[in-house]
């Protein structure tokens, strides 16, 4: 998948749809590439949402993340952009 396509998948399918953000009162526009997802400064998603993101990636791409380390949860999952880059790294594909 190309980076832009991947970023869109992350924003729309992985974050917005899978995490049911519409039910939480968010609109898709509020999930931009650089939106901070976790913590008070961002969309305030929680640790279980983090697990959901990891499982979503594993299921869709058939790849293994293995362990949800603090680095992955806090850094790699910071925003849709960092998630897209993380997925490309997992597949050993350089970002555009």
């Amino acid at each position, binding site marked *: 998948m190309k980076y832009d396509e991947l970023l869109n998948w992350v924003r729309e399918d992985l974050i917005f749809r899978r995490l049911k953000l519409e039910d939480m009162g968010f609109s898709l526009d509020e999930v931009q590439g650089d939106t901070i997802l976790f913590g008070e400064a961002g969309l305030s998603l929680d640790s279980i949402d983090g697990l959901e993101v*990891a*499982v979503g990636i594993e299921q869709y791409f058939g790849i293994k993340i293995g362990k949800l380390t603090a680095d992955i949860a806090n850094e790699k999952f910071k925003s849709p952009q960092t998630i897209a880059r993380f997925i490309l790294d997992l597949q050993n594909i350089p970002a555009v």
Partner: protein
Amino acid sequence: MYLFSTGSYLPGQPISNEMLAEYFGSSVHLIADYFGVKSRHMAVDYKTGKDFGEYTSDFGVKAAMDALSKVPQINIDQVDLIVTASSTPDYTLPSLSSLIQEKLGIKNAIPIDIRGGCSAAMQALLIAELFIKTGKSKTALVIGGECCSTIYYEFLFKQRKSYNAKDLLNTLIFGDGAGAFLVGGTLPENGGFEIETVNLGSVLPDQSPGFIFSLGGCKEKILGAKSVHLSELFQHLPKKIETNLPIVIRAMQKDLKSRNYGTQDFKQIVGPQANKRLIDDMNSLLKEHKAEYFYNGDITGNIPGGALLLAFDRLQQISPTLSGDKVLIMGMESPKWLYGYCVLRKQ
């Protein structure tokens, strides 16, 4: 009040993460490792989702028989009170305690159900204490147990090719089983424990829940409901738990202090058997006690109503409390921010 003996029961064999990963994929490891659970026991066949035919009342009966078998000088007919703690009874009615009474064949006993989560066993123990201290009961069974898998596993199994983490995580972190305490007013010859005190606290009654388990009620309608999504059955709110649980623990420590229990008083602590990261957080709050913290939730899963009783029974098999030493059993509940604890002294 005295603790004569304890018992426990876990159905079937341990179901490991590897076994579940065969059907649900490697995400099992991602989720289970995050919570620190390696295996659990289930009342269903994990390969098909079909019930084995044993439920919470049956687990409770087996745990009770286990406890009774250790004190042969007490006849089962002497039991005059059965108090149960569970959020997953076989039915809404008849009550879990009366079903257990029937299955144990006890003619004259008062059955009382406590419905609750991780501190329900202590609520049940407190009820038993009140009965015994007022002379309304001489010998009581306090039984805590859960059977979660039969509620949702088959449903989850059918969608095992694609599921949400929120659906799967409940299978991984919860477990089925039961524990039992046989208590009474007069200590029999085998020793046992004196139960020095049982106390409860409702710390944040005005705060919204940290965990919701909805299986239908007069407000939460099930009859004719549109398809219920599995993750709606159990709702975890980790941020609330992270914020409020330390407050509950501190309230409990304050309660202990007000009753003159100091940090050096306990040799062993049996605490919540919920996910490991929660325990690790609590350990840092509790480490001033310098007691041995017994945790076996990684191999039993979290069995809310039964965890404390079962863990204490297992502790007595693994590292039996020495004569004169004290044990603290404590439960914290996140559906509504409660604590419940008891202090036992080995005779």
